[in-house]
């Protein structure tokens, strides 16, 4: 994407095997190359690789500089198929199936650059620092004065003086400033044209011949804009995302898997979060975030049950509905149908409120379903925690 937009990047080759990596090394014609783990998470350079079977530590650092063909072989062996844990992957880490072998360049200095939407300013924000290669959150915490910021006026776009001033803040001049000016303009265009949520370049480097080059980049997109970016379907690495989350999305559900044991089925994102919070407040641990959205039909409720029950940790389920557009009777019918179809071996607590809650309750009560109906979220949380035997 960057290369197509004319952004300076180093030559490199995507690889999925050690053989690939070696032939990439041969073809790049650069003695020194970088061997980089490719996963969708930051902090790779400072991450650690573990064997997925034994859990043994294999190598420190997910991005390595190789000075020889032997190095390339060693590093790619240590990376491919192993689990990379970084500060952004969580404890579980992610299996690395792809790596990138990249030609080296003589680096004079490393910088940090990020483009994102600043929700407070309601504008695109560009952040840059002379402290490249570092963890930017550390820089922001410890030396905020080293982090230079430029907000893009939505009306005027990124202006020349802003690019120039940011470059000068990075102490660039002459050819390097010119190169930075050009690169930043192109990067901003990439950000806007591609509806990015964030572009992070770490490090951005100045080569010894004063070229500014994006050495390593992490890009995320605004999901809401997918309707005008059919091309995203091709570059999305589905294998890497949590399977259930992807499937849930296709079904119109918002689902995030968590570590607890109480499944939640809720309408509305805020209420879904609050449901998790209250479960924890009363001593339980939520197994997931799940928002069935507004106006879900029986099918959606069915799909939601399926996804919740797939998680082997789930020991009980709390359904929490405050009907607005959503009618409680539809949810009630969906719950009955799901239980009938899938069977239900864990306790179920149902709280129905708002639109048609009386009808909904009547449906549940009339069934021979083993459930507990409650009036409020707090009651529901207490009940489900009690039922699965957690602390009360």
């Amino acid at each position, binding site marked *: 994407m960057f290369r197509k937009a004319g952004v300076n990047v180093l030559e490199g080759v995507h690889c999925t095997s050690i053989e690939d990596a070696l032939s990439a090394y041969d073809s790049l014609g650069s003695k020194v190359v970088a061997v980089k783990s490719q996963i969708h998470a930051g902090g790779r350079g400072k991450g650690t690789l573990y064997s997925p079977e034994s859990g043994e530590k294999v190598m420190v650092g997910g991005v390595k500089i190789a000075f020889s063909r032997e190095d390339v072989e060693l590093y790619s062996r240590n990376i491919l198929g192993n689990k990379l844990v970084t500060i952004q992957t969580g404890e579980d880490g992610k299996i690395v199936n792809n790596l990138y072998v990249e030609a080296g360049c003589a680096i004079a200095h490393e910088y940090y650059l990020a483009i994102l939407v600043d929700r407070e300013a309601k504008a695109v924000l560009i952040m840059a620092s002379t402290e490249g290669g570092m963890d930017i*959150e550390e820089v922001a915490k410890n030396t905020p004065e080293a982090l230079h910021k430029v907000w893009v006026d939505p009306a005027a776009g990124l202006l020349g003086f802003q690019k120039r001033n940011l470059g000068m803040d990075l102490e660039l001049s002459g050819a390097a400033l010119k190169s930075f000016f050009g690169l930043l303009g192109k990067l901003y265009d990439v950000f806007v044209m591609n509806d990015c949520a964030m572009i992070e370049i770490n490090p951005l480097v100045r080569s010894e011949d004063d070229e500014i080059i994006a050495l390593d980049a992490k890009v995320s997109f605004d999901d809401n804009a997918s309707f005008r970016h059919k091309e995203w379907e091709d570059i999305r690495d589905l294998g890497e995302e949590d399977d259930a989350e992807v499937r849930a999305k296709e079904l119109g559900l918002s689902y995030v898997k968590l570590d607890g044991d109480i499944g939640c089925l809720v309408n509305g994102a805020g209420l879904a979060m609050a449901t998790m919070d209250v479960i924890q407040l009363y001593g339980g641990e939520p197994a997931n975030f799940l928002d069935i959205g507004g106006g879900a039909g029986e099918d959606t409720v069915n799909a939601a049950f399926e996804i919740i029950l797939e998680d082997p940790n789930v020991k009980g389920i709390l359904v929490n509905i405050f009907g607005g557009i959503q009618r409680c009777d539809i949810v009630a019918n969906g719950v009955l149908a799901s239980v009938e179809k899938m069977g239900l071996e864990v306790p179920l607590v149902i709280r129905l409120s708002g639109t048609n809650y009386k009808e909904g309750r009547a449906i549940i009560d009339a069934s021979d379903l083993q459930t507990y109906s409650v009036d409020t979220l707090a009651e529901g949380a207490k009940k489900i925690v009690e039922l699965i035997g957690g602390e009360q």
Partner: protein
Amino acid sequence: MMSIWINEHSKVLVQGITGSQGTFHATIMIEYGTDIVGGVTPGKGGLLLDMAEKSVSVYDSMFEAIQATDADASVIYVPPPFAAEAIMEAADAFDQIKGEGVIVCITEGIPTLDMVKAVAYVNQRPGIKLIGPNCPGIITPGKDGGCKIGIMPGHIHKKGRIGIVSKSGTLTYEAVAQTMSIGEGQSTCIGIGGDPVNGTGFIDCLAGFQADLQTEAIVMIGEIGGTAEEDAAAWAAENVTKPIVGFVAGATAPPGKRMGHAGAIISGGKGTAAEKFAAFELAGIHIAKDPSEIGAVLAAALKEAGLL
């Protein structure tokens, strides 16, 4: 001033009225008592829709519709690819014809950069207020019916003295139910939406409630992500004398994961519920740790302020 931004008699247009969402909600709004004075669907101008025993005219453009109806507000049920344009069309037309207007955008899933552009456009027209997008809307319950602009269930509301502002839809209903549980009604309830870039924020609403004669206490519901709650708390500490009850959803949300709302994400260790609760506490806001407690906390706050 009674209630904020809209009152029981506000005249409302529906953008996208001939779409399924638009038709469905326009009918429900009319049933509730909202004065729906017309709808807009380009190319369908001149159509007459029968809705809840009322005949509603469709116009080709917002400009035409406002000129014909002198509407005060508009509500948008237009699919995401066209919603930001609909906001700008409404802003331009209200600004040109009346110099003011309230725009409520219900649509979920508008690209963030579209909203950056639309919000900048709205902000250049100071008489225009945008609520949302991705929100339940705004409601001012009346003695009998009232003005409901959005998708919230009207029947759970009652006219009263509590102002409610929230990022979340269903949690707003929860808050409404909580006020009802202690016998209190609402002046105006506003769902500002959970998108990262939106129109009206907490501070606008708090300022409105503070100035409103009908409102005597405020419930404010935030969620993880951004720093809007912290900023609002700091502002309230200086500017709001009425009691505020606050709750923040997402204490158990893991970092880096988007929790439904595009804006509900803890990034770079920022935007946690703990920080927001702490800011509330510092600002003297009465905290409910569980939304089911909002009623009780509100009752205590009213009592403390000599209002109960």
